[in-house]
């Protein structure tokens, strides 16, 4: 039988995966299996096998057959990371009638074969890891996954194109959506653009119909000028607190006629929608096609709120919709899933001070350029210098400003090459100017993008390969007076060049929202080192996050163009719809619980739980954990001085046994 001491009643099967040559190339897998069969026999190991691909259907069948024929009660698989295949092997065990939580997957690929080179040392480490898994699995408990119902409503945060797409897909499928946007209108950055590459169709023409659809959709509750304050709960049952900022306009009465905006005497530089290039009033909608059509009063700039007099908007409003006393509203929403499509901020070009933005008048950012090209923008679509009238004769477009630069962001912002090509085309078309593009590498990888590049090349735009060192107005050579001089090393000819131009456009990169980390914390998701929201898997699960029920879409996840943002919005919606249709969700049963007979009522655990899952019974002087709120981190388990709290899946016994196993304390003495 299986052993003399320890756990003679348990029958353990050990399965060591070759993963082709991924593991077997560095680890002697046969040796590991043989070692486990002999040295861990007394711990209950009755069979140890190695197999080419454990995750294949044949590999899984091997486990299932052994469970049935050898009466295995525990299974240890030594293969890849549990994040990849834990579920695969658990499911295989379940098929054979074994509780899935009696299976332990230990990683000898990511943690051994891929990171070590010495075959002997790697094999020994793999053995220790298997021993750790065997000791641990002896303390596993059969568990049942938790099932909770899913609320049908979804919260979409961010009303840019990705959020709009997600909201429409879910609403069209017949489920309620709350779309929260912090600006007065939805539309996002796309609403600011003039033309979209590579087709050059007008951004507003393709975006505004979608915005109108959102505004009119019976399943969408649109909450603009609103921000999420707090998120509680978990997948299927989130409780979200939203602050609906006071518009100071009664939307039940307002018809969106726009008279208040006409009559308002206060002009304010519009830093958001017009990128600082144009003006808006103190009562405003960001643009004429705004959805919803209701304006907001910018309290910080309104003369009435500053000085107590004016009220021009109130006087002229034909429906009496202006309400200076309106207060912020706090809404509590119940939703099952959340899609975060909070977008990006542009790189602050002032940081790259060698390019002179903010100091040299005729240096523009790409976003300013979008507004300038836009027929509804501050110049009515005319491309002119900062004086508002002079048409430039030469224009330099600098790529990769703030991107692919160790001083700022090391990543590629994806859209800037195409955006720069678009500007080159538009400037040429509208002004006939000579256009230079200064690039490090040209990146035009998607459908019809390279064709557009070829077209711009044929139009006669000049391309200089090299990172621009400086933009200056200090003339040194004849012909440079009154110009901006672009100093660059042309790496194709290996020479320094000084190119005088009238106008410089900085193709600024995309950055995570300034408050991305705060938002991530609020929703309990992670950010990458750069600050973009982290997806569950970079290739295979790009819109889910590590937090169940929270999905990401668009540039919040990383720089991307409009088609990719739309695709992600739709993908996130599909994932949400999949969840809603399941009606209920199964959760990992990793939860803490308190043995009341051991609890001394010291309340040390009470303050440790950030999810308020622990409540204290004053009458009985004991604490209790609400399994619906517990997230299973185990901090209270570690802190309880009485050992009254236990955590399923990661119990003290399991961890302590794994330590012993990893340190090879429980081996059968080597046969002489």
């Amino acid at each position, binding site marked *: 039988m299986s052993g003399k001491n320890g756990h003679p009643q348990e029958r353990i099967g050990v399965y060591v995966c070759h993963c082709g040559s991924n593991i077997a190339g560095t680890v002697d897998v046969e040796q590991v299996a043989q070692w486990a069969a002999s040295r861990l026999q007394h711990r209950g190991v009755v069979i140890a096998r190695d197999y080419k691909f454990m995750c294949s259907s044949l590999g899984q069948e091997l486990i299932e057959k052994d469970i049935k024929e050898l009466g295995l009660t525990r299974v240890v698989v030594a293969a890849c*990371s*549990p*994040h990849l295949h834990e579920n695969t092997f658990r499911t295989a065990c379940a098929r054979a009638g074994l509780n899935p939580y009696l299976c332990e997957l230990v*990683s000898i*690929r*990511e*943690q*051994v074969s*891929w*990171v*070590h*080179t*010495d075959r002997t*040392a*790697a094999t*020994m*480490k793999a053995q*220790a*890891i298997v021993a*750790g898994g065997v000791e641990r699995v002896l303390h596993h408990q059969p568990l049942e996954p938790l099932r909770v119902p899913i609320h049908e409503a979804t919260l979409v945060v961010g009303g840019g194109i990705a959020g709009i797409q997600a909201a429409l897909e879910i609403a069209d499928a017949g489920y309620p959506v709350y779309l929260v946007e912090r600006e007065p209108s939805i539309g996002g950055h796309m609403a600011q653009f003039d033309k979209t590459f590579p087709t050059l169709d007008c951004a507003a023409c393709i975006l505004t119909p979608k915005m109108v659809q959102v505004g009119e959709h019976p399943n969408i509750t649109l909450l603009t000028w609103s921000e999420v304050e707090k998120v509680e709960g978990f997948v299927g049952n989130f409780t979200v607190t939203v602050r609906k900022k006071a518009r100071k306009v009664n939307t039940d009465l307002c018809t969106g006629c726009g008279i208040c905006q006409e009559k308002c005497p206060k002009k304010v530089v519009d830093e958001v929608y017009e990128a600082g290039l144009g003006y808006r009033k103190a009562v405003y909608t960001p643009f004429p096609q705004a959805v919803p059509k209701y304006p907001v009063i910018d309290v910080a700039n309104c003369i009435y709120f500053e000085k107590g007099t004016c009220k021009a908007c109130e006087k002229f409003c034909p429906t009496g919709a202006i309400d200076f006393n309106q207060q912020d509203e706090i809404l509590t929403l119940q939703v099952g899933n959340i899609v975060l499509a909070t977008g990006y901020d542009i790189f602050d070009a002032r940081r790259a001070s060698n390019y002179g933005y903010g100091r040299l008048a005729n240096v523009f950012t790409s976003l300013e350029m979008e507004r300038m090209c836009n027929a509804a923008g501050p110049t009515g679509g005319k491309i002119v210098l900062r004086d508002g009238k002079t048409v430039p004769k030469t224009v330099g477009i600098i790529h990769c400003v703030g991107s692919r630069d160790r001083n700022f962001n090391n990543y590629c912002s994806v859209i800037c090459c195409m955006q720069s090509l678009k500007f080159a085309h538009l400037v040429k078309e509208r002004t006939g100017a000579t256009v230079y593009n200064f690039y490090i590498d040209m990146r035009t990888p998607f459908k019809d993008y390279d064709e557009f590049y070829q077209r711009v090349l044929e139009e006669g735009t000049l391309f200089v390969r090299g990172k621009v060192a400086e933009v200056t107005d200090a003339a040194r050579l004849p012909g440079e007076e009154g110009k901006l001089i672009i100093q660059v090393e042309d790496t194709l000819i290996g020479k320094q060049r000084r190119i005088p131009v009238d106008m410089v456009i900085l193709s600024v990169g995309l950055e995570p929202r300034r408050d991305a*980390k705060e938002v*991530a*914390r609020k929703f*309990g998701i*992670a*950010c*990458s*080192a750069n600050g973009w929201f*982290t997806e569950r898997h970079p290739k295979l699960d790009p819109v889910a996050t*590590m*937090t169940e029920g929270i999905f990401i879409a668009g540039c919040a996840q990383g720089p991307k163009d409009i088609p990719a943002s739309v695709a992600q919005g739709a993908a996130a919606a599909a994932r949400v719809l999949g969840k809603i249709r399941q009606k209920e969700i199964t959760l990992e049963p*990793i939860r803490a619980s308190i043995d009341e007979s051991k609890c001394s009522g010291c309340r040390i655990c009470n303050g*440790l739980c*950030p*999810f308020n899952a622990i409540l204290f019974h004053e009458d009985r002087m004991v604490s209790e954990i609400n399994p619906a709120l517990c*997230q*299973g*981190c*185990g*901090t209270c*388990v*570690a*802190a309880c001085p009485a050992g009254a709290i236990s*955590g399923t*899946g*990661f119990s*003290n016994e399991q*961890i*302590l046994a*794994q*330590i*012993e196993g*990893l*340190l090879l*304390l429980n081996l059968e003495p080597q046969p002489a």
Partner: protein
Amino acid sequence: MSHETFEPTIIGFTCNWCSYRAADLAGTSRLKYPPNIRLIRLMCSGRLDPTFVIKALASGADGVLITGCHPGECHYLEQNYKALRRYLLLRRTLAALGIEPQRIKLVWASAAEGAKFATEATAFVEEIRALGPLGWGKSTNGKGLEGILEPSQKGEEVAA
């Protein structure tokens, strides 16, 4: 065992969300670090009961690496701060026990920091190698924590 050939045994604790994934990323990126370190996955660094560390050191480990999400990036919001508190207490406890506090080390590694994980693991192995063997496991006859906490069952006299 001579100093040159001393191969330390190190137990590493990782959290499910950041540092375990950093270790996974080190693997998928084929980054190399010495095989002396053996990892245990916890759901959160906040799960780290100081007993686990003492147990590991008392059972034959020469060092313990504790890893978790960066401050402010904990999957459970703030539980890694609790790990930090316990780590600082543990260092003092170890010093009081006459054990070099440098035998334990706390490292933050996000899921994106596979390279950092590999670098830190490599550095820690060298630091422990320089400290030499701990030998606590030997003095307890491999019985680990029980060897210290439960004195000899047979009632034999122990030399002072």
